[in-house]
C-alpha cells in the first residue's frame, strides 16, 4: 500500500487544476473560476496545516523522494499564499481575456511544482518540480496571445529557461555519475567519506553547471538579464507570482543542493558564492536606480534581494539559513504586494512608468499607502517586516565571522548594508512621486475589490510580521534546525 498522505496537498491542487478547464465549459465568469481555484488552494492549505500540526509522523512518498518536514511546510505555506493572492487578484485582472480556466489551472500547476521542490529530498525530484513550474510559467507569461510584449517575454523566458534546464540536467547527471546517487543525503554521505576525491575537477564542473542552471532561476548576476524583460512583459499578476513564488523555488533548490548535498566541501565554494551574492546585490541596486518603468525597477530590486538571500548559503549556519528563510517569507509578501498594486492600477489605466504614479496619494490613498509600506519594507525600514528579516540575515555573517577562517564574512554584511542604503534612493523616489508631486489627473480611482483585498492581505502580512516578529523568527529557527538535523 502506497502512502499518499505526504502529497495530498499537491494531489488536491492537481485535481482542482484539472477540473477547472471542465468548469470553463459551464461558465465564462472569471470570478466563479477564480473562486473555484481559490477553493482548491485553501483546501490544500488546510491539509498542509493538518500535517504541520503533527510532524512527529514522517510524511514520506516514493521511497523518500518526497519528505514533508518543517522546512517543507514553511515553503508550502509561502507558495500556497502566493498562489492564493495571485488567483484572487487575477479574477478581475483577466476578466476580459480568453482561456481563463487554463490561466488559473496553470497557476495551480506551477504551485504544485514549487511544493514538490520544497519537499523533495532528491536532486531529480527537485529538478522535475522546477521544470513543472517552469513549463507552466512559460505559458502564463505568454498568456495574452495578442500582446506583442508578452509574446516576446515568453520567447525570452522559454529560451533562457531551456538553457538553464540544460545546464542543471547536465550538472545533475555528472553529480549522479560521481556520487552514484541523486539524493541530497546520499551525495553528502559520499562526499564526506571520500574527500579528497579522485577527480575533484569533475565535481567542480558539475557544481558550476548546477549553479548556472539554478542561477538563471534565481536571477543571480550574471544570469539575470532575462528577469527585467520577462517581468515587464508578463501579465502583472503573473509577474508577482514569478517574483514571489518561482524565484523562491530556485532558492529552495540552492539551499538543498549546497547546504545538504555539498556541505562537506563547503570550504571550496563558500568564497565563490559569497562573491556572487555581493555582485548580485550591487548590480541589481545600481541598475534599478536608472529604471523608469516601475516593473523593471521592481525586477532589478528583486535581483538585489536575491543577492541578500544568497548570503545565507556561504555563511551556512542555522541562524543564517533562518535569516534567508525570513527574507524569502517577507519578500514573498512585500514584492508580491508591490507588483499587485501595479496590476491593480493597470486595470484603471494607470501606466507602468514611475511618472504615472505622480499624485497617486490623492487619487487612491489606500494604494499609495500600501505601496509606501511595501517599498519601505523592501528597503528595510523598522518596524516593518523587511527590517526584521534583513536584521536576522545581515547579523548572521557577522556572527559567523567570529570563527577562525571566516573573517571575510564581515564584508558580506557590510556590502549588504551599503546596498540597502543605495536601494533606499530609488524606493523613496517612488514615494516622493506618489505623495509630494502633483499629478495631472486628480479623480478618485474606483478599484476592483478583489485586487484591493489581495493587496490588503500582503499589507497585513508585512505589517503583522513587522510588529510581532518573535513567533516568526522562532518558527524559522526551528525550520532551519530541522533542515540541518534531519538530513
Amino acid at each position, binding site marked *: 500500500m502506497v502512502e499518499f498522505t505526504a502529497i495530498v496537498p499537491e494531489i488536491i491542487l492537481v485535481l482542482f487544476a484539472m477540473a477547472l478547464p471542465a468548469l470553463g465549459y459551464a461558465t465564462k465568469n472569471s470570478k466563479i473560476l477564480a473562486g473555484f481555484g481559490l477553493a482548491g488552494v485553501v483546501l490544500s492549505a488546510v491539509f498542509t496545516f493538518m500535517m504541520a500540526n503533527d510532524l512527529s509522523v514522517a510524511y514520506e512518498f516514493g521511497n523518500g523522494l518526497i519528505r514533508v518536514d518543517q522546512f517543507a511546510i514553511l515553503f508550502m505555506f509561502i507558495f500556497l499564499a502566493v498562489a492564493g493572492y495571485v488567483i484572487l487578484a487575477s479574477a478581475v485582472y483577466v476578466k476580459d481575456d480568453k482561456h481563463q480556466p487554463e490561466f488559473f489551472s496553470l497557476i495551480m500547476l506551477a504551485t504544485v511544482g514549487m511544493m514538490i521542490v520544497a519537499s523533495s529530498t532528491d536532486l*531529480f525530484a527537485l529538478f*522535475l518540480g522546477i*521544470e513543472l513550474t517552469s*513549463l507552466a510559467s*512559460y*505559458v502564463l507569461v*505568454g498568456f495574452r*496571445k*495578442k500582446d*506583442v*510584449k508578452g*509574446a*516576446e*517575454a*515568453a*520567447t*525570452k523566458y*522559454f*529560451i533562457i529557461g*531551456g*538553457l538553464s*534546464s*540544460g*545546464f542543471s*540536467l*547536465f550538472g*545533475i*547527471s*555528472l553529480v*549522479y*555519475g560521481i556520487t*552514484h*546517487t*541523486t539524493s541530497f543525503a546520499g551525495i553528502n554521505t559520499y562526499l564526506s567519506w571520500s574527500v579528497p576525491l579522485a577527480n575533484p575537477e569533475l565535481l567542480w564542473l558539475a557544481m558550476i553547471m548546477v549553479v548556472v542552471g539554478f542561477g538563471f532561476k534565481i536571477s543571480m548576476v550574471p544570469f539575470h538579464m532575462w528577469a*527585467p*524583460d520577462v517581468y*515587464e*512583459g508578463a501579465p502583472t499578476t503573473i509577474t508577482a507570482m514569478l517574483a514571489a513564488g518561482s524565484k523562491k523555488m530556485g532558492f529552495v533548490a540552492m539551499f538543498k543542493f549546497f547546504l545538504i548535498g555539498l556541505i562537506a566541501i563547503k570550504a571550496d565554494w563558500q568564497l565563490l558564492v559569497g562573491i556572487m551574492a555581493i555582485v548580485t546585490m550591487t548590480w541589481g541596486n545600481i*541598475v534599478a536606480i*536608472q*529604471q523608469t518603468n516601475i516593473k*523593471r525597477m521592481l525586477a532589478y530590486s528583486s535581483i538585489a534581494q536575491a543577492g541578500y538571500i544568497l548570503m545565507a548559503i556561504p555563511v551556512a549556519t542555522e541562524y543564517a539559513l533562518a535569516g534567508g528563510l525570513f527574507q524569502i517569507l517577507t519578500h514573498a509578501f512585500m514584492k508580491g504586494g508591490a507588483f499587485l498594486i501595479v496590476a491593480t492600477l493597470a486595470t484603471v489605466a494607470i501606466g507602468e512608468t514611475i511618472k504615472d504614479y505622480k499624485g497617486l496619494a490623492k487619487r487612491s490613498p489606500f494604494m499609495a499607502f500600501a505601496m509606501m509600506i511595501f517599498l519601505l519594507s523592501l528597503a528595510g525600514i523598522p518596524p516593518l517586516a523587511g527590517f526584521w528579516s534583513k536584521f536576522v540575515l545581515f547579523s548572521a555573517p557577522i556572527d559567523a565571522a567570529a570563527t577562525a577562517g571566516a573573517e571575510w564574512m564581515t564584508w558580506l554584511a557590510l556590502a549588504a548594508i551599503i546596498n540597502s542604503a543605495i536601494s533606499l534612493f530609488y524606493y523613496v523616489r517612488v514615494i516622493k512621486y506618489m505623495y509630494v508631486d502633483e499629478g495631472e489627473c486628480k479623480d478618485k480611482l474606483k478599484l476592483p475589490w478583489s485586487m484591493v483585498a489581495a493587496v490588503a492581505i500582503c499589507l497585513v502580512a508585512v505589517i503583522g510580521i513587522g510588529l510581532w516578529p518573535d513567533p516568526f523568527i522562532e518558527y524559522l529557527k526551528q525550520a532551519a534546525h530541522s533542515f540541518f538535523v534531519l538530513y
Partner: protein
Amino acid sequence: MDATGIPLNWFLILSACLFVIGLAGVLIKRNAIVVLMSIELMLNAANINLVAFSVYNNDPTGQVLALFSIGLAAAEVAIGLAILLNLNRLRDTVDLNDLTILRW
C-alpha cells in the same frame, strides 16, 4: 569496463561534445527554432551521461531518470513551438535579434 567493451570516457567525451555544440548553438544561432533544437541537444547530452553512468555504476536509477528527462524534453518542445508560433503570428519573425521591444 563492462560487456559493451566501450570505455566510460568515450561516452563522456561524446556527451561533452554534444553539450558544447548545443551551447554554441544557443549562443550563436539567431533563429529561435535552431536555438530550440540546440537546447534539445544539451538535454540529450545529459541523457547520454545518465545512461552511461547507470550502466557503469550498475545502478538502474540513471536510466529511469533519462526516461523522465526525455518526457520532459518533449513537453518543453511542445510548449516552445507553441510560443514561437504565436511570436511568428504577431511579429512575422522568429529571429531573436528582432526581439527588441523589451530592453533597458
